[in-house]
């Protein structure tokens, strides 16, 4: 019996097999830090050109091109592409903007639509063969989006309600016993300023991170265990089956998380537009 080597052992390949004598390469956080292809120095700043940044650019091009192409025909009886674009637009307008914000939500449809489709396609990159890396599992991306969302609803709140009224309205919700404000006011302020943006970013990041980790684990296991033995076949087939099921589940989560991210943005914008009375 050969000595079991850990996958951290440099003599083991990146994706070892059971027969190589290497231990199961349980995926860890390292799989989220891919080797950069190149580093670009622009104005004294290093831009890492890696899988994540290339995928982000790709997503950006795909979403922008799709909507520009879908908006171009402008026919009364739409073709398939135009119809799809219109349905996507109406989904954001009717299910998110008007549903959550109300009639004055129409002017936020471009922002909400950009968020939803950018996040969704970024997430989808986690299961698309060849890409197989969800961009939002890199914390910087959800944070970048959340900062824009945060800036937007903070600005709108202070503009429509007044810079002081915006905070006091959030800190002193009506219909609460006066004494409770001692406890409630700081919590509400913390909620508005810190908790909301942090949770919004981390919810998206953590979901994509965990999903990718899970998928990688079972994909690697399916390969690691494949061997002409009963346990090998059973384990490999089971792992593969789980991978397939998880991929479907993951696609559902990807859409759901994009929806939740956008929906929360709409809720926050709506709260900034109309203070609770």
């Amino acid at each position, binding site marked *: 019996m050969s000595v079991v080597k850990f996958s951290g052992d440099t003599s083991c390949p990146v994706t070892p097999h059971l027969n190589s004598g290497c231990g199961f390469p349980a995926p860890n956080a390292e799989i989220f830090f891919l080797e950069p292809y190149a580093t670009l120095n622009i104005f004294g700043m290093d831009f890492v050109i890696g899988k994540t940044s290339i995928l*982000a650019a790709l997503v950006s091009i795909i979403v922008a091109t799709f909507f520009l192409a879908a908006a171009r025909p402008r026919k009364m009886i739409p073709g398939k592409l135009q119809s799809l674009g219109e349905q996507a637009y*109406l989904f954001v307008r009717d299910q998110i903007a008007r549903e959550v914000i109300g009639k004055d939500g129409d002017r936020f449809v471009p922002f909400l639509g950009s968020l939803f489709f*950018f996040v969704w396609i970024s997430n989808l990159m986690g299961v698309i063969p060849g890409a197989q890396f969800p961009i939002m599992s890199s914390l910087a991306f959800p944070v970048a989006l959340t900062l824009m969302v945060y800036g937007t609803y903070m600005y709108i709140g202070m503009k429509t309600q007044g810079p002081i009224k915006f905070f006091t309205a959030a800190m002193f919700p009506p219909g609460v016993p006066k004494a409770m404000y001692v406890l409630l006011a700081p919590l509400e302020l913390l909620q508005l300023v810190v908790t909301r943006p942090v949770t919004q970013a981390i919810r998206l990041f953590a979901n994509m991170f965990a999903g990718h980790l899970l998928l990688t684990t079972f994909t690697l296991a399916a390969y690691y265990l494949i061997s002409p033995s009963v346990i090998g076949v059973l384990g490999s087939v089971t792992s593969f089956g789980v991978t397939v099921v998880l991929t479907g589940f993951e696609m559902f989560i990807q859409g759901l998380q994009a929806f939740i991210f956008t929906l929360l943005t709409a809720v926050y914008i709506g709260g900034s537009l109309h203070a609770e009375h």
Partner: protein
Amino acid sequence: MFNIIAAESEVNILRLPLDELIIGTLAFGIVFFALAKFAFPAISKTLEARADAIEGGLARAENSQAEAAAMLEEYRAQLADARGEAANIRAEAQSEKIVMIENARGEAAAAAASVTERAQAQIEAERSQAMASLRRDVSELALTLASKVVGESLTDDARARASVDRFIADLEVEAAK
């Protein structure tokens, strides 16, 4: 177990590299620019135009329906008019017919009456003629008879004639009684 220790020492999943923040912002910015500036306004306008077209079509359909209904109403009114007119004409004809029949009947009755009158007059004339001739004949016969009885001619005697006439008149009175 090696890996996890290594992971903890080497990588931090919560790190926020500035270049990725900028790339993320830029990537989103491109999408937002394309959608907010071009795609969504165009889609929104197309949807509005379509809604307008559909609503316009509906309005047009409603118009033509109302027009058709008005026309139908007009036709019905015309038909009713025509029917009324026909009924009038029929009634007029009926009354005209009655008048004509009445006229004809009157005329016929008048003609009949005149014929009867004429006939009566003729009968009367003939009767009086017959009466006169009878009276003359009878008086002549009576005179002849009387002269035969009396043995003298009474023929040209005016007195004799008058007495015969009186006698006949008496007879007539008797007969009338």
